């Protein structure tokens, strides 16, 4: 029940931020010299009335604040406006691109968590032993290497040279085997999905993995020095139980927070990775939108991605609260 109230509390808290996102995006999109439509239509010799019809359609003849209100009133009804370049509703365009990005980002996270936490714990327990040093070096390299460069190198090595993995694109499980005339069964489909996902997943996940690993290590070390661990030892609790239960849970708290906050790096990285691996996700849609200065589309994507981040953070906060009883009793900050 405390948890429920906390959840609501966080949701309410998020509202101003979400509104803020729309404001920032809107202001940026309209900060361009000349109005966005003319900016985007540059390169096409279009007669005045066409421009004017478009301008009216997007209410560009009205003052800024009124335009914002118009935009918002559309937004609350799920209307993100209309892409001038694709001549499609922005929401439709984004909807079809949401899946791949989510698939990519989530799997990258899965990869990061699954590798980082054991390695971090290992490093913490084997502190200052070779294993520790190795894992620290890995982590260091991880946080220092541009994800897109990792991607390029992975493609060159594993796709082009060795030919083990496909170099581009994804296979979407939600299309089902019937979506691909070269795939017959579900297992095959999932196998293909995994195969296509692996390289981009690693490229995007490495940074996350490295960051988490560093934190996990320090947290475990701190946690293992905690009094409650001493106590558990003094009462004859086996080391394994101590690791898995007493030390572990506490160490995870900061990890959860970090996972939430790093979502922004991950979503940003998705843009690069989708570009390098030619994945039809939000990221590439964003690049295309930017290239064509399709401002309604750009606003839509930015807002959606911002929202994804906020939601992600809320989710992590809640699971934090779930693990750490202290939070729900108004001790956050």
């Amino acid at each position, binding site marked *: 029940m405390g948890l429920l109230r906390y959840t609501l509390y966080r949701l309410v808290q998020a509202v101003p931020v979400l509104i803020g996102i729309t404001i920032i995006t809107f202001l940026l999109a309209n900060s361009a010299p000349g109005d966005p439509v003319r900016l985007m239509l540059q390169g096409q010799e279009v007669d005045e009335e066409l421009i004017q019809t478009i301008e009216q359609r997007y209410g560009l003849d009205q003052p800024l604040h009124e335009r914002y209100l118009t935009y918002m009133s559309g937004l609350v009804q799920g209307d993100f406006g209309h892409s001038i370049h694709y*001549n499609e509703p922005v929401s439709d365009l984004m909807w*079809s691109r949401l899946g791949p990005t989510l698939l990519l980002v989530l799997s990258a996270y899965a990869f990061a968590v699954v590798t980082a936490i054991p390695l971090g714990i290992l490093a913490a327990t084997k502190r200052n032993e070779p294993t520790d040093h190795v894992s620290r070096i890995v982590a260091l390299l991880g946080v220092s290497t541009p994800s897109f460069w990792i991607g390029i190198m992975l493609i060159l090595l594993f796709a082009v040279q060795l030919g083990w993995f496909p170099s*581009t694109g994804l296979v979407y499980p939600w299309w089902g085997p019937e979506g691909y005339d070269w795939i017959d069964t579900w297992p095959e489909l999932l196998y293909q999905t995994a195969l296509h996902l692996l390289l981009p997943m690693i490229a995007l996940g490495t940074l996350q993995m490295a960051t988490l690993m560093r934190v996990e290590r320090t947290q475990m070390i701190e946690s293992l020095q905690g009094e409650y661990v001493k106590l558990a030892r003094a009462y004859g609790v086996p080391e394994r139980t101590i690791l898995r239960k007493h030390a572990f849970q506490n160490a995870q708290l900061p990890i959860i927070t970090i996972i939430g906050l790093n979502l922004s790096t991950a979503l940003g990285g998705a843009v690069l990775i989708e570009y390098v691996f*030619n994945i039809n996700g939000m990221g590439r849609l964003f690049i295309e939108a930017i290239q064509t*200065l399709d401002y309604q589309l750009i606003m839509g994507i930015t807002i959606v991605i911002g929202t994804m981040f906020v939601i992600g953070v809320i989710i992590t906060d809640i699971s934090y609260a779930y693990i750490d009883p202290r939070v729900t009793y108004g001790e956050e900050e």
Partner: protein
Amino acid sequence: MANNQQVWTRRRILASGAAVSAAAVAGCIGGNGDEDEEGGEILDPEEYDYERDEPDDPDAVSDGTMVYTQELERDEDFDPVVSNDAYSFQIITQVFDGLYEFNYDYELEPKVAVDFPEVERDDTRYLYEIHDGIEFHNGEELTAEDVAHSFTAPVEEETPNMSEFDMIEDVEVIDDYQLQVDLENPYGPWEMFNHAVEIVPEGARTDDREEFNQNPIGSGPFEWSDFEFGEFIELERFDDYWDDPVPHLQGIRFEDNVDDASRVSEMLSHDTDAIGDVPNDDWDELEGEDDISVHVTESPSVTYIFFNTNEGAGTADPNVRRGIAHAFSMQDYVETYLNNAAIPLVTPTSRITNDLWDFPIDEWEEDVYPEYDPEQAEELLDEHAPDDWNPTFMAPDDERATLAERVATRLDEIGYDMEVQTMDFGAMLEQTIYSEANPDDYELYILGWTGGPDPDQYLYSLFHESMEELNNGHHYEGRDDFHDRIVEARQSADDDEREELYIGIIEEILEELPALPAYTEHNSMATGEQIRDMHVHPQMQYNPNLVSDESNVWVDD
């Protein structure tokens, strides 16, 4: 389409390195053309020829399918009346038949038409007869009505394609298999280009144009199977195809990958069976793979450096233009940058066009075309260029920008400070050809153009005053009757007369240099070894050219 002009631009003005093309001789690398592929050496498609590669047992290969990766995204418009980007058209040409179709020599041959038209009324009336018993994929028969509709719809509906048919005065259906097309006045390019219309079923199309655009019905060798917007298109062999040969290929899937490197990765890792447009620098790599073959052909795509000839611009003086032209080496640029993808060009018309019209190219190359000669450049500029002159050179942010940088570097070496502004393609068009050509804005810009077999397709569009601020921004006034001669040439159907006029016009252009012809790009494609009898077609929209009298692609497992 939200804005025609953009698509239109995309069709003709080269938005990227990818060329819409045609050629006199198509070829497959790995044929018995002599190959010396040392870097620097410029590849010449004419050195390659190919022979057919037919399966021993056609039935055995009748279930082959392939994936083809296009080099640019489609606009996903598949109604030939409306559609106007080469990459949607690559699907359209599989699904529809044309009244006439280009062969590998880029000459039109009858397809739906039984033969070439009878011409009457001083070259303004064309009589067409079409085959009977041609069926659309929906079972309806293809009649003269449909052909008429295909001719008139673009103008009636003011689609982006109207400019190709707006010289039509009237179309009259004589009976199911005959029709008559009247032009307002004689139109030179008509028989060479414009009457190669793709034929749509009037009934099915007019029922629901939106639906037809996303789920087209033609009479072509392949029919619509599956389509995911922005993702892929799957076509299947139309087994009741009326014409011979029927495709070996059972089905084909079109995807796209705009990123050169990643597209090549796909090919190298065989994630796809074929890719369009082999990037210049990956040529050797792909050709080196023994399970990949590379195909190339010339194209009617020409890239120029245009000069702002408006009064007040430093480049208003032809001597200055010539000086700049002498300052750098086009040859060197093509060698280091496009040795596999393009070939230097001395005329404003493409090589193919030149061959079809046998223009005196060698002469021009010898006498008029300015070659690399720093001394002369310095001389000319010192004499004619304004004092403390720093011209602006605008280029789109692709490989063409590096040409601009080279020009600037060379000029810099002889003491002229030129600023290169590279920008987004659209932004550049905005600031050059769609601008008033204010001398303060720019002196030079680079742009490519895709013409056709007829010189008019270059000279009228790029040099006639009516096309100022539409296709060109050089604002060249020309000697006495320059512009009249261009119109005169297009409105004549007498080839000798036209050729003479064009030679004059081209020579003036080469002497006055409102534009410096740079190079013509090739059409290329790479395929896995299992894909057989594939030959890249001169007409970009025909690629991959899956079935014709001259080739019939099959898969060899």
